[in-house]
Protein backbone atom coordinates (compact mmCIF):
# COMPACT_ATOMS: atom_id res chain seq x y z
CA UNK A 1 0.00 0.00 0.00
CA UNK A 2 1.52 3.37 -0.96
CA UNK A 3 1.13 6.62 0.99
CA UNK A 4 -1.72 7.93 -1.18
CA UNK A 5 -3.76 4.78 -0.59
CA UNK A 6 -3.06 4.87 3.15
CA UNK A 7 -4.10 8.54 3.27
CA UNK A 8 -7.33 7.72 1.41
CA UNK A 9 -8.10 4.99 3.94
CA UNK A 10 -7.34 7.41 6.78
CA UNK A 11 -9.74 9.95 5.27
CA UNK A 12 -12.43 7.29 5.01
CA UNK A 13 -11.97 6.45 8.69
CA UNK A 14 -10.37 3.08 7.96
CA UNK A 15 -7.93 2.10 10.72
CA UNK A 16 -5.52 0.46 8.27
CA UNK A 17 -4.58 3.91 6.93
CA UNK A 18 -3.09 5.36 10.14
CA UNK A 19 -1.57 1.97 10.93
CA UNK A 20 0.42 1.87 7.71
CA UNK A 21 1.49 5.53 8.00
CA UNK A 22 2.66 5.04 11.58
CA UNK A 23 4.61 1.91 10.76
CA UNK A 24 6.27 3.71 7.87
CA UNK A 25 7.14 7.03 9.51
CA UNK A 26 7.28 6.61 13.27
CA UNK A 27 11.00 5.76 13.15
CA UNK A 28 11.98 9.02 11.46
CA UNK A 29 9.62 11.17 13.53
CA UNK A 30 10.69 9.55 16.80
CA UNK A 31 14.40 9.87 16.07
CA UNK A 32 14.11 13.48 14.98
CA UNK A 33 12.20 14.20 18.21
CA UNK A 34 14.75 12.29 20.26
CA UNK A 35 17.67 14.17 18.75
CA UNK A 36 16.04 17.52 19.25
CA UNK A 37 14.63 16.90 22.72
CA UNK A 38 17.38 14.70 24.11
CA UNK A 39 15.29 12.24 26.13
CA UNK A 40 13.05 9.31 25.32
CA UNK A 41 10.03 10.40 27.40
CA UNK A 42 9.73 13.74 25.58
CA UNK A 43 10.46 12.07 22.25
CA UNK A 44 7.59 9.60 22.83
CA UNK A 45 5.20 12.42 23.76
CA UNK A 46 6.32 14.46 20.77
CA UNK A 47 5.92 11.55 18.35
CA UNK A 48 2.39 10.87 19.58
CA UNK A 49 1.47 14.54 19.24
CA UNK A 50 2.93 14.70 15.73
CA UNK A 51 0.84 11.79 14.49
CA UNK A 52 -2.31 12.99 16.28
CA UNK A 53 -1.90 16.43 14.72
CA UNK A 54 -1.16 14.99 11.30
CA UNK A 55 -4.24 12.75 11.38
CA UNK A 56 -6.45 15.55 12.71
CA UNK A 57 -5.19 18.14 10.22
CA UNK A 58 -5.14 15.95 7.17
CA UNK A 59 -7.14 18.57 5.26
CA UNK A 60 -3.99 20.75 5.40
CA UNK A 61 -1.96 18.08 3.62
CA UNK A 62 -1.74 18.77 -0.09
CA UNK A 63 -2.12 15.68 -2.24
CA UNK A 64 1.07 15.03 -4.19
CA UNK A 65 3.33 16.48 -1.48
CA UNK A 66 5.60 13.82 0.13
CA UNK A 67 3.81 12.74 3.31
CA UNK A 68 7.09 12.02 5.13
CA UNK A 69 8.39 15.55 4.54
CA UNK A 70 5.07 17.01 5.73
CA UNK A 71 5.30 14.93 8.92
CA UNK A 72 8.90 15.98 9.50
CA UNK A 73 7.79 19.61 9.30
CA UNK A 74 5.17 19.00 11.98
CA UNK A 75 7.77 17.13 14.05
CA UNK A 76 10.28 19.99 13.87
CA UNK A 77 7.67 22.50 14.99
CA UNK A 78 6.44 20.18 17.74
CA UNK A 79 9.98 19.80 19.12
CA UNK A 80 10.61 23.54 18.95
CA UNK A 81 7.33 24.22 20.78
CA UNK A 82 8.29 21.74 23.50
CA UNK A 83 11.76 23.28 23.79
CA UNK A 84 10.19 26.74 24.15
CA UNK A 85 7.96 25.53 26.96
CA UNK A 86 10.92 24.13 28.85
CA UNK A 87 13.05 26.14 31.20
CA UNK A 88 16.40 26.67 29.57
CA UNK A 89 19.62 25.72 31.30
CA UNK A 90 21.80 28.82 31.62
CA UNK A 91 25.29 28.61 30.22
CA UNK A 92 28.11 28.52 32.73
CA UNK A 93 30.80 31.15 32.44
CA UNK A 94 32.84 30.39 29.36
CA UNK A 95 36.41 29.28 29.53
CA UNK A 96 38.91 31.72 28.10
CA UNK A 97 39.53 30.97 24.44
CA UNK A 98 42.70 29.11 23.52
CA UNK A 99 44.51 28.74 20.25
CA UNK A 100 42.22 27.30 17.56
CA UNK A 101 44.51 24.46 16.44
CA UNK A 102 45.10 23.21 19.96
CA UNK A 103 41.36 23.42 20.65
CA UNK A 104 40.63 21.45 17.51
CA UNK A 105 42.96 18.64 18.49
CA UNK A 106 41.60 18.47 22.02
CA UNK A 107 37.97 18.56 20.93
CA UNK A 108 38.52 15.97 18.22
CA UNK A 109 39.69 13.51 20.88
CA UNK A 110 36.32 13.64 22.66
CA UNK A 111 34.08 10.66 22.14
CA UNK A 112 30.54 10.70 20.83
CA UNK A 113 28.90 10.39 24.26
CA UNK A 114 30.86 13.35 25.61
CA UNK A 115 29.87 15.50 22.63
CA UNK A 116 26.22 14.51 23.00
CA UNK A 117 26.31 15.25 26.73
CA UNK A 118 27.89 18.65 26.12
CA UNK A 119 25.23 19.44 23.50
CA UNK A 120 22.49 18.66 26.02
CA UNK A 121 23.92 21.27 28.36
CA UNK A 122 23.27 24.04 25.85
CA UNK A 123 20.01 25.93 25.91
CA UNK A 124 17.14 24.49 23.92
CA UNK A 125 17.41 26.84 20.99
CA UNK A 126 21.13 26.21 20.54
CA UNK A 127 20.52 22.46 20.70
CA UNK A 128 17.79 22.74 18.09
CA UNK A 129 20.03 24.75 15.76
CA UNK A 130 22.93 22.31 15.97
CA UNK A 131 20.75 19.19 15.72
CA UNK A 132 18.81 20.45 12.71
CA UNK A 133 21.93 21.60 10.91
CA UNK A 134 24.50 18.90 11.69
CA UNK A 135 22.47 15.82 12.60
CA UNK A 136 19.46 16.37 10.38
CA UNK A 137 21.41 18.14 7.58
CA UNK A 138 18.73 20.79 7.10
CA UNK A 139 19.33 23.88 4.94
CA UNK A 140 19.66 27.18 6.76
CA UNK A 141 16.46 28.63 5.25
CA UNK A 142 14.40 25.75 6.64
CA UNK A 143 16.03 26.09 10.06
CA UNK A 144 15.27 29.81 10.02
CA UNK A 145 11.64 29.13 9.12
CA UNK A 146 11.29 26.49 11.84
CA UNK A 147 12.68 28.87 14.46
CA UNK A 148 10.75 31.83 12.99
CA UNK A 149 13.85 33.97 12.55
CA UNK A 150 15.56 35.47 9.50
CA UNK A 151 18.20 33.51 7.61
CA UNK A 152 20.84 36.03 8.63
CA UNK A 153 19.89 35.67 12.28
CA UNK A 154 19.99 31.87 11.91
CA UNK A 155 23.54 32.00 10.50
CA UNK A 156 24.78 34.07 13.42
CA UNK A 157 22.82 31.98 15.95
CA UNK A 158 24.37 28.82 14.51
CA UNK A 159 27.87 30.28 14.81
CA UNK A 160 27.17 31.22 18.43
CA UNK A 161 25.74 27.79 19.17
CA UNK A 162 28.91 26.14 17.81
CA UNK A 163 30.97 28.47 19.94
CA UNK A 164 28.89 27.63 23.02
CA UNK A 165 29.34 23.92 22.36
CA UNK A 166 33.07 24.38 21.94
CA UNK A 167 33.22 26.11 25.33
CA UNK A 168 31.25 23.27 26.89
CA UNK A 169 33.59 20.69 25.38
CA UNK A 170 36.65 22.55 26.61
CA UNK A 171 35.17 22.64 30.08
CA UNK A 172 34.60 18.86 29.86
CA UNK A 173 38.25 18.29 28.99
CA UNK A 174 39.08 19.71 32.41
CA UNK A 175 40.50 23.05 33.33
CA UNK A 176 43.63 21.56 34.88
CA UNK A 177 44.89 19.84 31.72
CA UNK A 178 46.64 21.62 28.91
CA UNK A 179 44.58 21.57 25.74
Amino acid at each position, binding site marked *: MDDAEAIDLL*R*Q*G*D*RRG*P*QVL*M*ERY*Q*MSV*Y*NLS*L*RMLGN*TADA*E*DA*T*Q*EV*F*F*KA*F*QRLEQFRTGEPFGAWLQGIARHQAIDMIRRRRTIPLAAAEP*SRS*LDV*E*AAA*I*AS*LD*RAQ*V*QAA*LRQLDGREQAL*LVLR*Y*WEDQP*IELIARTLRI*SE*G*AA*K*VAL*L*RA*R*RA*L*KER*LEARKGTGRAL
Partner: protein
Amino acid sequence: MRCEDARPLLLKGQHAEAEAHLESCEICFGWLEAHDPIVAVLQAARPTLSPVPASVASTVLARWQPHRVSLGMGIAAAIALSVLGLGLSALSILAAPALAASFLASVSDLAAIVQAVAAGLLAVPRALLFDQPLGLAAFTAATVAACALWARLYQQSQLPRRTVS
Protein backbone atom coordinates in the same frame (compact mmCIF):
# COMPACT_ATOMS: atom_id res chain seq x y z
CA MET B 1 33.76 44.77 6.17
CA ARG B 2 35.53 42.40 3.80
CA CYS B 3 35.27 38.61 4.07
CA GLU B 4 38.98 38.15 4.93
CA ASP B 5 38.65 40.68 7.76
CA ALA B 6 35.43 39.19 9.13
CA ARG B 7 36.50 35.54 9.24
CA PRO B 8 39.27 35.64 11.87
CA LEU B 9 37.05 37.84 14.06
CA LEU B 10 34.16 35.42 13.73
CA LEU B 11 36.35 32.43 14.58
CA LYS B 12 37.75 34.15 17.66
CA GLY B 13 34.58 35.32 19.33
CA GLN B 14 31.62 37.65 19.22
CA HIS B 15 32.16 40.73 17.15
CA ALA B 16 29.10 42.79 16.21
CA GLU B 17 30.43 44.14 12.94
CA ALA B 18 31.73 40.75 11.78
CA GLU B 19 28.42 39.09 12.70
CA ALA B 20 26.53 41.73 10.73
CA HIS B 21 28.70 40.78 7.76
CA LEU B 22 27.98 37.07 8.29
CA GLU B 23 24.22 37.69 8.28
CA SER B 24 24.34 38.61 4.63
CA CYS B 25 27.40 36.64 3.45
CA GLU B 26 26.69 33.10 2.28
CA ILE B 27 30.38 32.57 1.40
CA CYS B 28 31.62 33.35 4.90
CA PHE B 29 28.90 31.13 6.36
CA GLY B 30 30.14 28.21 4.26
CA TRP B 31 33.78 29.02 4.95
CA LEU B 32 33.20 29.09 8.72
CA GLU B 33 31.46 25.73 8.66
CA ALA B 34 34.30 24.25 6.62
CA HIS B 35 36.94 25.59 9.02
CA ASP B 36 35.23 24.99 12.35
CA PRO B 37 36.43 21.68 13.90
CA ILE B 38 33.21 21.54 15.94
CA VAL B 39 31.24 20.78 12.77
CA ALA B 40 33.10 17.52 12.10
CA VAL B 41 33.03 16.60 15.79
CA LEU B 42 29.26 17.14 15.91
CA GLN B 43 28.64 15.20 12.72
CA ALA B 44 30.72 12.31 14.05
CA ALA B 45 28.64 12.35 17.24
CA ARG B 46 25.32 12.00 15.39
CA PRO B 47 23.30 9.43 17.37
CA THR B 48 22.41 6.16 15.70
CA LEU B 49 18.70 5.51 15.12
CA SER B 50 16.84 4.25 18.17
CA PRO B 51 13.92 1.82 17.99
CA VAL B 52 10.50 3.35 18.69
CA PRO B 53 8.77 2.03 21.83
CA ALA B 54 5.69 -0.01 20.85
CA SER B 55 3.53 2.11 23.17
CA VAL B 56 3.85 5.09 20.82
CA ALA B 57 1.91 3.51 17.95
CA SER B 58 -0.55 1.71 20.20
CA THR B 59 -1.41 4.94 22.06
CA VAL B 60 -1.93 6.91 18.86
CA LEU B 61 -4.04 4.20 17.24
CA ALA B 62 -6.08 3.62 20.40
CA ARG B 63 -6.95 7.29 20.65
CA TRP B 64 -7.47 7.87 16.95
CA GLN B 65 -11.14 8.19 16.11
CA PRO B 66 -12.37 8.42 12.55
CA HIS B 67 -13.69 11.94 12.09
CA ARG B 68 -16.41 11.46 9.65
CA VAL B 69 -19.75 9.90 10.39
CA SER B 70 -20.86 8.65 7.02
CA LEU B 71 -23.73 10.71 5.57
CA GLY B 72 -25.36 7.54 4.23
CA MET B 73 -25.35 6.00 7.72
CA GLY B 74 -26.93 9.15 9.17
CA ILE B 75 -29.72 9.24 6.60
CA ALA B 76 -30.37 5.51 7.02
CA ALA B 77 -30.63 5.94 10.81
CA ALA B 78 -33.05 8.89 10.43
CA ILE B 79 -35.27 6.92 8.02
CA ALA B 80 -35.24 3.86 10.30
CA LEU B 81 -36.29 5.98 13.31
CA SER B 82 -39.13 7.65 11.33
CA VAL B 83 -40.42 4.30 10.09
CA LEU B 84 -40.25 2.90 13.62
CA GLY B 85 -42.22 5.88 14.99
CA LEU B 86 -44.89 5.65 12.28
CA GLY B 87 -45.14 1.90 12.75
CA LEU B 88 -45.63 2.21 16.51
CA SER B 89 -48.34 4.89 16.02
CA ALA B 90 -50.19 2.79 13.46
CA LEU B 91 -49.96 -0.27 15.71
CA SER B 92 -51.39 1.58 18.73
CA ILE B 93 -54.32 2.96 16.67
CA LEU B 94 -55.10 -0.48 15.23
CA ALA B 95 -54.76 -2.29 18.54
CA ALA B 96 -56.87 0.08 20.69
CA PRO B 97 -58.94 2.46 18.52
CA ALA B 98 -60.93 3.91 21.44
CA LEU B 99 -57.86 4.57 23.55
CA ALA B 100 -56.06 6.01 20.58
CA ALA B 101 -59.00 8.31 19.77
CA SER B 102 -59.18 9.68 23.31
CA PHE B 103 -55.41 10.06 23.36
CA LEU B 104 -55.46 11.92 20.05
CA ALA B 105 -58.28 14.18 21.32
CA SER B 106 -56.32 15.10 24.45
CA VAL B 107 -53.22 15.61 22.31
CA SER B 108 -55.14 17.96 20.01
CA ASP B 109 -56.42 19.94 23.04
CA LEU B 110 -52.90 20.16 24.39
CA ALA B 111 -51.61 21.11 20.95
CA ALA B 112 -54.13 23.94 20.74
CA ILE B 113 -52.97 25.33 24.10
CA VAL B 114 -49.29 25.01 23.13
CA GLN B 115 -50.01 26.70 19.81
CA ALA B 116 -51.73 29.64 21.51
CA VAL B 117 -48.88 30.11 23.99
CA ALA B 118 -46.27 29.77 21.25
CA ALA B 119 -48.08 32.29 19.06
CA GLY B 120 -48.07 34.77 21.92
CA LEU B 121 -44.39 34.15 22.68
CA LEU B 122 -43.42 34.33 19.03
CA ALA B 123 -45.31 37.53 18.36
CA VAL B 124 -42.59 39.71 19.90
CA PRO B 125 -39.50 38.18 18.18
CA ARG B 126 -41.57 37.94 15.01
CA ALA B 127 -42.31 41.64 15.14
CA LEU B 128 -38.66 42.33 15.95
CA LEU B 129 -37.14 40.09 13.30
CA PHE B 130 -39.47 39.57 10.37
CA ASP B 131 -40.73 43.12 10.20
CA GLN B 132 -37.19 44.47 10.38
CA PRO B 133 -34.83 43.07 7.73
CA LEU B 134 -31.74 44.49 9.46
CA GLY B 135 -32.65 42.74 12.71
CA LEU B 136 -33.17 39.51 10.84
CA ALA B 137 -29.79 39.88 9.12
CA ALA B 138 -28.03 40.49 12.44
CA PHE B 139 -29.79 37.49 13.99
CA THR B 140 -28.72 35.31 11.05
CA ALA B 141 -25.12 36.51 11.37
CA ALA B 142 -25.13 35.75 15.09
CA THR B 143 -26.51 32.27 14.41
CA VAL B 144 -23.82 31.55 11.81
CA ALA B 145 -21.13 32.80 14.21
CA ALA B 146 -22.48 30.58 16.98
CA CYS B 147 -22.44 27.58 14.64
CA ALA B 148 -18.85 28.34 13.62
CA LEU B 149 -17.87 28.59 17.28
CA TRP B 150 -19.47 25.24 18.04
CA ALA B 151 -17.70 23.68 15.07
CA ARG B 152 -14.39 25.09 16.32
CA LEU B 153 -15.03 23.80 19.85
CA TYR B 154 -15.85 20.39 18.45
CA GLN B 155 -12.63 20.40 16.42
CA GLN B 156 -10.61 21.32 19.51
CA SER B 157 -12.30 18.61 21.55
CA GLN B 158 -10.98 16.14 18.97
CA LEU B 159 -7.34 17.19 19.55
CA PRO B 160 -5.20 14.58 21.30
CA ARG B 161 -4.74 14.62 25.03
CA ARG B 162 -1.35 13.81 26.52
CA THR B 163 -1.20 10.25 27.78
CA VAL B 164 0.15 9.47 31.20
CA SER B 165 2.46 6.51 31.14
